[in-house]
């Protein structure tokens, strides 16, 4: 018996060690980014970089704003991401409702397409999109980029929202119909209020995806004053000497903060939704 208990204890220790290794692997790069962002140039240049800066400074953040139009980039990203998130839930929610409640071939085909199109390399889509948006005078425009983001966020939005609609018992709607409420009335006053948390989570996720997106923004936005955060971040790159790393890290950290905060808000819902989805199957 004791031998067995000793073996369980050993297993537990090994498990905690393994978990620690995973956490180190996942977190060390991020902590290094934070550390670099707060280091003064002198420490960045030293041959013995330390984890905790001796003289933490905010100078890198100031320098980052001086070097690149970060404020404008953040505003652009905010506009494109918020617009895309809003439009995505507005167009996806009705379709998700249909997917969850009805069996129409059209909706099935559309979802099938959304899934299949994931497998195609973006280069095949971006050239025609570029030509199309150019013909519509939407190249180098945040509006054009926002439209692309809406379509691009639909796969995940539809998947999440369909799950949330399924979670609303159809009996509730049937009861409302029996009470004489029309279809629109039922949707607006019975189903929609129950869907609000799910719609918010979906919108936030669409926001994060658009805020983080790089490839479309790189191709579709040319004027520096229209570019989004990820594109502007790449302007910091080059053969950077150690002293230039501070502003680079500071800007990168700032660009991450919104995504991390919002993700923390919806994380439970995303993973929870995934777990629920798997359990249902």
């Amino acid at each position, binding site marked *: 018996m004791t031998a067995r208990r000793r073996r369980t204890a050993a297993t537990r220790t090994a498990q905690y060690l393994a978990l620690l290794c995973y956490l180190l692997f996942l977190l060390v*790069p991020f902590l290094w980014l934070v550390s670099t962002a707060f280091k003064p140039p002198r420490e960045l*240049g030293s041959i013995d970089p330390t984890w905790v800066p001796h003289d933490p400074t905010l100078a890198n953040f100031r320098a980052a704003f001086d070097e690149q139009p970060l404020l404008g980039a953040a505003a652009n990203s905010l506009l494109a991401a918020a617009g895309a998130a809003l439009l995505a839930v507005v167009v996806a929610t009705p379709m998700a409702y249909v997917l969850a409640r*009805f069996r129409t071939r059209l909706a099935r085909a559309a979802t099938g397409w959304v899934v299949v199109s994931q497998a195609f390399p973006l280069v095949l889509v971006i050239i025609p999109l570029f030509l199309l948006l150019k013909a519509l005078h939407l190249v180098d425009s945040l509006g054009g980029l926002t439209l692309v983001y809406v*379509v691009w966020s639909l796969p995940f939005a539809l998947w999440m929202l369909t799950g949330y609609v399924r979670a609303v018992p159809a009996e509730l709607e049937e009861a409302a119909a029996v009470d004489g409420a029309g279809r629109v009335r039922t949707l607006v006053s019975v189903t929609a209020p129950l869907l609000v948390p799910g719609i918010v989570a979906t919108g936030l996720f669409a926001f994060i995806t658009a805020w983080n997106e*790089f490839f479309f923004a790189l191709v579709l936005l040319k004027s520096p004053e229209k570019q989004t955060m990820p594109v502007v971040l790449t302007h910091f790159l080059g053969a950077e000497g150690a002293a230039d790393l501070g502003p680079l890290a500071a800007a*990168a950290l700032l660009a991450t903060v919104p995504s*991390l905060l919002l993700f923390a808000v919806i*994380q439970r819902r995303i993973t929870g939704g995934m777990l629920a*989805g798997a*359990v249902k199957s």
Partner: protein
Amino acid sequence: MTLMTAAKRSSGPRAGAGPRRDHGVWFLVLPALIPILVLSVGPLLYGVALAFTDAQSGRTEPTQWVGLLNFADLFRDTLFWDSFRIGLVWALGVTVPQFFLALGLALLLNEKLRLRWLARALAIVPWAMPEVVVGIMWRLVYHPDAGVLNETLRSFGLGEGRDWLSGLATALPAVIVVGIWSGLPQTTMPLLAGLQNVPRELHEAAAMDGAGAWRRFRTVTWPALRPVALAISALNFIWNFNSFALVFVLTDGGPGGRTRLPMLFAYEEAFRYGQFGYAAAMGLAMVAVVAILLAVYLAGRLRTGEDDR
């Protein structure tokens, strides 16, 4: 993500509350359908068509059909083949270790360990970060002077370290590590979800029968996990083969093209040199190869799956 949709769809309609037929709902589908048609279906078909033309950016003469000429050129383009090979090494080099690491992490997170909630929350960090930031962050880690990797090596007396991202031999392995890091949460979460789906009673019964941990994994856990594992690894392979931003930021395809993934190559061809038709042909070749590899993989897996049973 998509794999969950697929899994859910297969569950079929539930009795009573389940989906029903209705032809008056098409107007609810339209708001999503129109953008999908205009900005996804249309462009993709147009893109496929472009592969058979000599389309170039900013040209005044009309674009002509050239048949398979682009593909013939592609076939002789050794740079493209190099890039393709690198793309396959990268996609496999990321997908396979990532899967095993994610499986290990999922198994750990499924245990009743203390601080599990913290680990679960923190494991999400790579998921939330913009890819460009992930690239920048790892450039800081790999930086020859101010990077934490070389600093750690020096402090353990393991030599002076090196310039990882510009070394001909180290660049590709270095970016592969970044690829593994950035996709770990997305791979872990579905696997964890799959694990929580494994019936606990089966585990207990197997333990009662004296089955060891490995045997229990083989006979109880793995059969339940297999569909999710298959789907997530296939999807990861596709996404990795088509990935762009990470390596664009890390090395921009350098040094000497050692990390020039197919997407980077096609991007340069299209938007640096304006060869739209040729770049579209590259895209189509990428789809074809991915489709063939996946078909072989899935067919092989499914067959062995039947043998197991």
